[in-house]
């Protein structure tokens, strides 16, 4: 390794107070003319619903608002600034061509309530995207409506419930491995299912015996993530699906980690019946605050009747919006979902082509394994099996030798100019008190970036040996240092009030 150094930060950054503490009473960004109609008494019109006191809004000029948010934005970190190795999140680079196409007036200027005859281009794009996603995932049909991954889970489980009810069955349970995303049990609860946790086996994979013991007539579905959140491929997926199917259940796959499978595995052909796809992960649409997300759901033919309405159907050379679907679970989102994201994902898929997507997966897996090879000496692996697109390390060695923990390493990484990886997740990696670092570099990072990042982590290990307090007190280079996360979680202050500011 090459000893890395914390980054130098030299740009002018303003320390910025809350906007409520700026401005002056009575100031406004708009110059309204004097009232020239009779004033209305809100109490006379709305009674008890009328506000007793004016809301405590910020009273600032347009310039103050612009500067406030622009200054705050410069405190931010983004994929366009540097490596964002947040495991499980697939923080992919968002190609600029996507943005360009999404801004074409023919897409950006549409109104979803226009007559379908004037929406043909948009409908064609959605119809084609559905086919592309089905081709990639191995499914018969898909819905583009869900607004994010968890919304896709909700949609998928609603279809699973409708499928069973259509057969006169009312199974009550969903089996979920303990390595699952936290949204999986939440989606089950929203659908009225109880969840049965399945323990991860000693090899980091789903334990077939535990599955066999848990699968029975009450099993509505298994929710599995493949590769799992441990970055491991569930090699026994076909056998797993067979156990679930034999019990009368369906297999739901959380497609959050699809980036490891493009062009290699089509989940629909491995026994998976339903899968959501995160366009904001695998297909390069913006993520997090820059979203919105998009979580299309693919299904096998048996579940097609239950897809949400409307669907988009092609007849000859034209496209129409189909509402007449008697067994449908109904509408799950206004209009057609987050259409701007469909445009971006479609652009990406067409730009890459099948070979390009396959190559992206290969590079994502290669990059994760490169980091694994460079870092596993200092950070022992949670499970020593071949890694897919992400790799989970532990702080076992570092903690024992220096007292420095995962959280400290993550904070110190900021001083080196990186967004920290996901920490203390997934659960099987942190049982027994170990700290976990879950690193997903994605396919677009160069060898130089990966080396610099590995050097930074290894330099932090050296710092922890030389001067553990330096790491425990990190970050030092950021606008705000180590926060009291415990106090923030125990006594959260969620909104500004005049009292709380003094």
């Amino acid at each position, binding site marked *: 390794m090459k000893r890395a150094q914390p980054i130098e930060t030299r740009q002018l950054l303003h320390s910025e107070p809350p906007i409520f503490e700026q401005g002056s009473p009575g100031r406004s960004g708009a110059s309204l003319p004097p009232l020239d109609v009779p004033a209305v008494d809100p109490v006379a019109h709305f009674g008890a619903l009328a506000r007793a006191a004016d809301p405590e809004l910020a009273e600032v000029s347009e310039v103050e608002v612009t500067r406030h948010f622009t200054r705050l934005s410069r405190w931010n970190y983004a994929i366009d600034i540097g490596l964002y190795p947040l495991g499980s999140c697939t923080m992919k680079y968002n190609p600029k061509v996507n943005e360009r196409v999404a801004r074409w007036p023919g897409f950006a200027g549409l109104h979803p309530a226009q007559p379908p005859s004037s929406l043909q281009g948009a409908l064609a794009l959605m119809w084609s995207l559905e086919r592309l996603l089905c081709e990639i995932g191995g499914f018969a049909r898909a819905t583009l409506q869900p607004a994010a991954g968890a919304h896709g889970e909700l949609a998928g489980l609603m279809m699973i419930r409708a499928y069973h009810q259509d057969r006169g069955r009312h199974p009550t349970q969903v089996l979920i491995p303990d390595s699952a995303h936290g949204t999986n049990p939440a989606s089950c609860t929203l659908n009225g299912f109880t969840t049965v946790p399945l323990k991860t086996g000693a090899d980091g994979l789903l334990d077939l015996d535990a599955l066999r013991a848990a699968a029975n007539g009450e099993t509505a579905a298994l929710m599995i993530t493949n590769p799992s959140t441990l970055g491991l491929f569930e090699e026994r997926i076909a056998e797993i699906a067979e156990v679930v199917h034999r019990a009368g259940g369906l297999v739901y796959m959380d497609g959050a980690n699809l980036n490891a499978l493009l062009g290699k595995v089509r989940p629909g052909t491995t026994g998976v019946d339903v899968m959501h796809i995160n366009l904001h992960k695998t297909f390069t649409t913006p993520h997090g605050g820059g979203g919105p997300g998009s979580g299309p759901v693919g299904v096998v033919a048996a579940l097609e009747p239950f897809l949400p309405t409307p669907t988009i159907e092609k007849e000859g050379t034209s496209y129409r919006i189909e509402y007449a679907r008697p067994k449908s679970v109904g509408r799950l989102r206004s209009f057609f979902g987050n259409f701007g994201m469909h445009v971006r994902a479609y652009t990406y898929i067409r730009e890459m082509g099948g070979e390009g997507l396959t190559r992206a997966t290969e590079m994502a897996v290669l990059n994760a394994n490169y980091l694994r090879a460079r870092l596993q000496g200092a950070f022992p692996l949670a499970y020593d099996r071949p890694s897919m697109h992400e790799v989970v390390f532990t702080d076992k060695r570092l903690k024992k030798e220096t007292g420095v923990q995962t959280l400290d390493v993550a904070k110190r990484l900021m001083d080196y100019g990186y967004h920290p990886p996901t920490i203390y997740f997934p659960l099987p990696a942190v049982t027994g008190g170990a700290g976990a670092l879950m690193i997903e570099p994605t396919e677009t990072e160069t060898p130089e970036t990966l080396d610099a990042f590995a050097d930074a982590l290894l330099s932090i290990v050296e710092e922890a040996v030389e001067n553990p307090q330096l790491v425990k007190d990190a970050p030092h280079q950021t606008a705000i240092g180590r926060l009291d*996360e*415990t106090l923030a979680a125990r006594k959260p202050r969620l909104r500004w009030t005049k009292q709380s500011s003094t």
Partner: protein
Amino acid sequence: MSSDYPNDLRYTKEHEWARLEGNRATIGITKFAVESLGDITQVDLPKEGEAIRKDAVFGTVESVKAVSDLFAPCSGKVLKVNDPLSDSPEYINEDCYDEGWMLVVEVADLKEIEALMTAQQYAEYLKENH
């Protein structure tokens, strides 16, 4: 280890403890669990009168690191809940065997408690597995 894991308690592999008095058991989580979790920020417990089932999840504990399930050391009916924990989860960090207790349950089958690990067995289990 003896003060970390009091001799009058029984222990589970999931790091809960149970203190039996008559047919009542007080339940909490061990010092090892607390140290692994870090600062605890929220606890979700069943209500009085509800039933818990041995080895099933009876609640969750959330720390700055993660949300973890709580597994019942025995089956029984919940007689008392340590309500102050909802406002002051830090009691668990400060004193997990006394002020940080979680539930008192009426034990359905005393044999379930007897089958749990003793302090010495638990200490050995930790040594072997962690």
